[in-house]
């Protein structure tokens, strides 16, 4: 049996030479979601990384722990990885929009409101939605190695269409090393009321490097122990 310095480990009664572990089944570690956060009020949402989770609510909980535990946060979005449409990556001086197939007269339909739940649509917008168009969130990677950042929404009939519309609306922005388009309805987003979950983050001073000041103690020790 394994003997540990930790009595809790000893209580587990772990065998010295266990049998070979069984292979893990597919999805043992769940599916994948991508996470975006907002550092402060009014700032754009920025990609922070993935989480593994069995479904969106759990993904949100994991994302909250993983990506907003330590530093300031005012909002969190999670979306299944499968829901993200990704363009080719291009060089840091180029535009990923240039890799899209050329189509004649792509519609340019930007959605003004940043909040997908906005309901004050124009008659033209209402007609478009009734015809099956939906909102898509668009994210740009300005430089390889950095993080994708939300640039706005477009209205489109498919992910491929959303990229074409985004090209018409945001294509002047350069460089754009990569673009992500995500159907807005696929996100699980924190709401205004959820902000309470981050209210106590700044109070946890024991996690701040600045809270640990040792120099005074060192100086006092050296003064009292000149031979040390």
């Amino acid at each position: 049996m394994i003997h540990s310095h930790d009595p809790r480990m000893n209580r587990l009664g772990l065998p010295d030479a266990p049998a070979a572990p069984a292979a893990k089944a597919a999805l043992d570690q769940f599916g994948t979601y991508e996470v975006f956060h907002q550092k402060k009020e009014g700032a754009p949402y920025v990609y922070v990384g993935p989480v593994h989770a069995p479904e969106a609510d759990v993904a949100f909980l994991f994302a909250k722990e993983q990506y907003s535990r330590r530093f300031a946060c005012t909002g969190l979005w999670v979306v299944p990885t499968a829901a993200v449409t990704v363009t080719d990556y291009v060089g840091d001086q180029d535009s990923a929009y240039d890799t899209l197939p050329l189509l004649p007269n792509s519609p340019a339909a930007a959605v003004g409101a940043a909040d997908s739940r906005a309901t004050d649509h124009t008659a033209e917008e209402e007609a478009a939605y009734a015809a099956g168009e939906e909102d898509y969130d668009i994210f740009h990677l300005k430089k390889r190695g950095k993080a994708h950042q939300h640039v706005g929404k477009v209205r489109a009939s498919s992910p491929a269409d959303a990229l074409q519309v985004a090209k018409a609306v945001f294509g002047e922005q350069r460089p754009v090393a990569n673009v992500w388009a995500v159907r807005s309805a696929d996100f699980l987003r924190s709401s205004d009321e959820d902000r309470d979950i981050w209210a106590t983050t700044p109070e946890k001073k024991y996690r701040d490097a600045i809270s640990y000041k040792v120099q005074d103690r060192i100086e006092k020790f050296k003064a009292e122990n000149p031979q040390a």
Partner: protein
Amino acid sequence: MYGSASTHDLPTTAATGLENEDPILLAEFEARIGRGEKIEPGDWMPALYRKQLTRMIEQHAHSEIIGSLPEGTWITRAPGFRRKMAQMAKVQDEVGHAQLLYSAAETLGKTREQMLIDLINGKSKYSNVFNYPTPTWADSNVISWLIDAGAIVNQLANAKGSYGPYCRALDRICAEEAFHLKYGHDAVVHMATGTPIQRKMMQEALNRWWPAIMTFFGPSDKMSVHTEILMRWKVKMASNDECRNQFLDMYVPKIWEIGLTLPDANLRKNEETGQWEFTEPDWEDFKRVINGDGPCNAERIAVRRAAEENGAWVRRALLTPKTQYVRPLA
């Protein structure tokens, strides 16, 4: 936390397999790195680059998750509520770093399931220092300060590497580890400047850990096989000896400042060369331990395995028919 666990078995130039790669794509890949651009998951990359990065990031992830065990064991016994909270926050950070790193490795094609299996069956390595025990609170403090300090030297270098997902993960990890370093230094200073018993305890812990710390960055450059190609591809950003020298430069004076000694009579800085001189670590012992014969190898793997097995029913219960795995994007 992180250490060069087994990067000494990198391939020689003769065994790179580059002769099988498309020369035009390879030239474009190298030109991109030469321009200072990062490689992203959708890019073409040589098989050797993918393999070495996967192994390196995976080892790093394993080191975070195994490295949380020797400190985690002290959460309940840390002196005082504030130190318990801080120790717990640090351990949570380390496990979070493993999550980030596993995801970065997944972008290269290896599944998380396979990485976890390879860890618990001993196929994959992790930082060798975590195969040593933490018999006292002072030992835990040495990890918090000096192992994390070594890790930060490594990670700051690697954050300038060429693979985008790894760089993004390391940026976040380094930001979180700033607290670890200060917390660890504070804990060591507290003990070293405390009562004679505390001071003795800290000195003894430092004596126990110093040989392992000196191996933290991996074997001496003169023992390492040729890694020129990995340096050119910015997979490896600094040599083992460069990292070790930087660490000694930054932390030996801080150790001496609080009146602690180091168990190496030959340790000194050569002011002419700027290099530290020291007794060569026992690399045979290093190899013995990393290959499974250390004081805690079996315990570390057994605990990790128990956690995996005991959590299996929870994971099965949470699965829904809609759960879908897609390789993380970035």
